[in-house]
């Protein structure tokens, strides 16, 4: 598999395990897979299914073997693909029950008797923990290997009442879907800045552009001004083909670059970091935070309108400011951009927020 992300033993590095969502979930694997997954050489008790680190599982199956010891039950659970031993500790309540069952509880005369209710509760709990062969068990817990045998150390287990197999059928239908959607899909992690996945390269692109704004105090720009900045994010195509050969199909590096830039600008616009004052052929973007005219316009609107009786007490609502900005300044200012402007004005104490969405000046 992805060679660079593996250590020599063929495992993903342990530092990355926590990034795999399956790691912290109870994986609903088939018993067959639980028995076959390889144990980690770095950390015993961690197993790998399809490079996913796994240490706890969730299993539903028929009890086909049963032993009771003083402190625990041992159930062999069969899910139709394999049989695994489950070590199910008796909890304290269970032991208490065994003790208290010897001492007799006084029968009450019809009224509510906490003692007998508690006893009933314990009996109910006990009956869910003690299973016979042929009954259905749901068990969750970490996988252990003891004496070369895989077993599940139950952290939670109970008998499932399934008279018409509805639970089992639902489980059988669901598990293949889980495999297809999660367990059988390799984890996409990019520990190094290779920018292979589309999502991360867009994130990087927006960050690069934002840094550029900050460093150069850009107030206005056109797409071609920033296009070259994103060049390093486009994977270079191998230049092995002879020069006279036709280029292979698929988006060229130049097209990819333009698409990436377009996507990044869209995100920046959605976040309100940039906006277009006028929508025209000339693709001119304004950087919201650097647009002094916009800042002044917003400040003026708030100052003027707060003099009106209607807004005097509470200040102007953000939507009122937005519509005023659109009327007087530019139709294309988004709410996100306005929020950024208001935030920076507030940081300078030019305006004061009186509530979540009301602003005034003093």
């Amino acid at each position, binding site marked *: *598999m992805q060679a660079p992300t593996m250590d020599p*033993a*063929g495992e993903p590095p342990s530092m990355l395990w926590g990034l795999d969502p399956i790691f912290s979930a109870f994986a609903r694997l088939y*018993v*067959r*897979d639980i028995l*076959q*997954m*390889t144990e980690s050489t770095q950390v015993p008790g961690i197993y*790998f*299914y*399809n*490079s996913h680190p796994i240490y706890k599982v969730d299993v539903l199956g*028929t009890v*086909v*073997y049963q032993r009771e010891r003083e402190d625990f039950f041992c159930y*062999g659970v*069969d*899910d*139709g*693909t*394999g*049989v*695994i*031993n489950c070590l199910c500790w008796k909890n304290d309540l269970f032991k208490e029950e065994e003790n208290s069952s010897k001492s007799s509880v006084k029968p009450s005369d019809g009224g509510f008797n906490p003692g007998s209710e508690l006893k009933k509760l314990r009996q109910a709990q006990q009956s869910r923990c003690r299973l016979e*062969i*042929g009954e259905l068990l749901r068990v969750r817990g970490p996988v252990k290997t003891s004496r070369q045998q895989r077993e599940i150390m139950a952290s939670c287990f109970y008998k499932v009442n399934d*008279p*018409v*197999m*509805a639970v089992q*059928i639902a489980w*059988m*239908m669901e*598990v*293949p879907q889980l*495999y*297809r959607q999660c*367990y*059988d899909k*390799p984890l996409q992690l990019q520990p190094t800045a290779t920018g292979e996945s589309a999502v991360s390269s867009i994130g990087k692109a927006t960050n690069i552009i934002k840094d550029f704004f900050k460093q150069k105090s850009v107030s206005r720009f056109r797409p071609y001004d920033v296009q070259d900045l994103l060049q390093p994010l486009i994977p270079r195509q191998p230049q092995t083909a002879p020069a006279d050969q036709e280029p292979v199909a698929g988006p060229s590096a130049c097209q990819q670059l333009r698409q990436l830039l377009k996507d990044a600008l869209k995100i920046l616009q959605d976040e309100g970091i940039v906006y277009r004052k006028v929508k025209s052929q000339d693709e001119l973007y304004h950087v919201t935070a650097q647009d002094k005219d916009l800042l002044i316009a917003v400040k003026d609107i708030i100052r003027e309108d707060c003099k009106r009786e209607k807004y005097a007490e509470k200040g102007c609502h953000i939507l009122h400011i937005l519509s005023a900005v659109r009327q007087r300044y530019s139709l294309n200012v988004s709410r996100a951009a306005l929020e950024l402007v208001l935030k920076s004005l507030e940081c300078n104490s030019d305006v004061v927020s009186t509530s979540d969405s009301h602003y005034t000046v003093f």
Partner: protein
Amino acid sequence: MLPAAAVFHFPWEINSGEVQEGLSVRLLGRLVCYQPEESRATLSAQHASKEHQVVVHTLFVEPFNPIIGAQYIVLGEIENAEGVGAMVRARVLNCVDGVNVALLQKATNEQRSFFREREHTPGDAEQTAHAT
């Protein structure tokens, strides 16, 4: 010691000889006949407009409450008995009357096709499972 996993099968697969002797199976069928003196029950299922019957040896699961006409699920091993052919020696026999037979068949097929898919595609799953 743990028994082998009882894999879902359909009753019509038992008689057609698809399932070898000694294999563990789990199957669903309607109880049509029970002979306690011989510890022998017969489960039946319809498939492709034919009635398929499977003989179940019930010695290990007795006593049980036989309800003629109800759906039962059986877990056990295939045995060849004289005069009967393939027979299931039951370890578990549960009455599951009211079960949605069609849905269970669908779920069984779903599971099978999933495993088939995984074994046929150059499975990463199998690779990692057998690595080291």
